[in-house]
């Protein structure tokens, strides 16, 4: 069966430096795969490669079984992307931002659905008609998450998605991710938050200096053991 997301011996260069070196993984439909790594490990670059912003220097990258290089537009239309710092437009309200970006994606959504999505991310109702420049970082992130929900794409790429969220909002976000995966969405998230990754992911891949150096999977309905992953992460980061 074709995996929605697959990297085959993927190597990437950015400005002459190797950021990924022969990384291979696949994410199954309805699976949450978390790529864990420190700064500069190549996590964000991996997401950008799936979106066609970075061309592989080696190997291949596939979305729904098709090479991204062959049809970037098809790959992007299947993916909702949540960047690390959710940079929506500060001079527009949450509704206006959602409206603009959904228009941009060519997606027609009813106004009522905006509120459903914003309710799911718990963005206060009174804030929704305010400009984003008055929002906290967490509120902006919630708006961006709502956008990703409304896109209703089969694949979700999340770059440090809980950055800026308070602990309650992080827990709510983790529940949301699980719900989405349960509904069949394929989710690849990159993070350096070991606890968060273990809470939400079905599998965790450990990325270090451009190489996938470890993999941990949830078994028997249990979550991935945070202690084990943290020990491996700490060991790898210090060696």
């Amino acid at each position, binding site marked *: 069966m074709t995996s929605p997301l697959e990297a085959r011996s993927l190597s990437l260069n950015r400005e002459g430096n190797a950021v990924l070196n022969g990384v291979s993984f696949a994410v199954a439909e309805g699976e949450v795969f978390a790529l864990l790594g420190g700064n500069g490990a190549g996590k964000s670059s991996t997401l950008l490669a799936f979106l066609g912003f970075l061309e592989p220097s080696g190997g291949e990258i596939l979305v729904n079984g098709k090479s991204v290089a062959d049809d970037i537009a098809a790959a992007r239309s299947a993916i909702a*992307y949540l960047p690390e710092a959710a940079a929506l437009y500060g001079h527009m309200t949450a509704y206006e931002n959602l409206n*603009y970006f959904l228009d941009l994606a060519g997606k027609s959504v009813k106004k009522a659905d905006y509120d459903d999505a914003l309710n799911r991310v718990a963005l206060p109702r009174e804030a929704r008609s305010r400009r984003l420049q008055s929002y906290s970082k967490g509120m902006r992130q919630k708006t961006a998450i709502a956008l990703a929900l409304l896109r209703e794409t089969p694949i979700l790429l999340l770059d440090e998605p809980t950055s800026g969220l308070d602990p309650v909002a992080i827990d709510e976000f983790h529940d949301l991710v699980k719900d989405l995966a349960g509904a069949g969405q394929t989710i690849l998230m990159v993070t350096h938050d070991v606890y968060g990754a273990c809470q939400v992911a079905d599998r965790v891949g450990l990325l270090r200096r451009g190489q996938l150096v470890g993999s941990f999977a949830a078994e028997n309905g249990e979550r991935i053991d945070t202690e084990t992953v943290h020990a491996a992460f700490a060991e790898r980061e210090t060696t």
Partner: protein
Amino acid sequence: MVDTGLRCRIFCSAEGAGLMVRDMLRESRFLVKDRGALFWLLLAFILSIISVAFGIAEVRDQQRTIAELVQEDRADRANALEGQEDWGGAAYYAFHLTYAPPSEFAFAALGQRDSSPWKHRVRMLALEGQIHEADTRNADFGLVGRFDFAFLAASVAPLLLILLLYDLRAAERTARRHDLLLATAGSSKSLWLPRALIRVMALFFLLLIPLWVASAVEGASLGVMIQASVVLLGTLLIWWLIIELISRIDASSSVLLTALVGLWLALAIVIPALSKAAIETRQPLPKGGEILLLQRETVNDAWDMPKEATMSAFLEEHPEWNAHATIEQPFEWKWYYAFQQLGDMKAEPLVAQYRSARLARDHEAGVFAFLSPTSFVERSFEKLAGTDAASMIAYEESVRDFHAQLRAFHYPKLFKDEPFDRDLLEGLPAYDP
């Protein structure tokens, strides 16, 4: 049966047009919320209104001046002719107004009307001095330029376009929104093209609306209005292409702005200035004062020359008066007007050189204008408005033609010693612009 490929092409192109309309609507809604862009667009609209208002005010002033001069011209001439008793005196004292009225589109580009005279009062004396002694009314504007629509379209509109477009990509990169936008849009074409196009079109129409309203008020022809619109659209598209190429460079907004303003300076100021200097070096132009001096010296010298020498030189040009060219008195009008014409004839090579050098300069300026969109647009507007160098030279030629008619009217009366008949003055040539 419709070919499947053709059907696909029709369907695909219709679908593509539909998507473009959708993208344009989205970006127009986005533009309405962009206060920075709205400020520049509003400024463009206000500047366009100001430029056409200045132009119309100047044209109205010129029209009023001409109307007053036409009235005064008739009265002055009637007054001057009142006490005359011979044809020579009538020709000497009667001034005739010549003028180039501004065209219906002159308000948009006052062009050479600021640096070349567009009205004269001539009489039957040597003409070239009368043409070249005329002061231009707005010589200072000839130096610094005037804020008319041509200047706005040629020089200011590109700057406004730069300010509207230079950081479309760079600002999104700085805000770390670039990748999200492209990932959401799917392709850069469906994002940047409509975003830039809606700004270009908004600027185009906001500049154009005051021009069209003013053109309609002034009675400019639809053809001229359409041509002017095409010129404006052309310059905006060329500058859009330039901005698009530069702004693709992965650099900060400030670097892009500096590069684009530098390029604007080069194309709008440096290249025109260098080309002007090069043209002036390549095509030296005799000064109008030299023509005036040569003609006056010739006329003054004639007083001391033997009359036969003057008349024989004159008869080479006008052999038809051979039988009537004997000068018996110390002063005769026909001798007087003969040496006036000799003054023109003496200055003729310099006048021809002056004229051909101006035309050559104009031609070369037209060639150099292909290096500078600014010069090209200004020249195009001046041509449409009839305020270009060729139009002003044509006006000077019309003054010469009119002066030739004056001579043709008076010479038979002067050389045949016809008795002065005031009624025949009704047949004096009238200048028809």
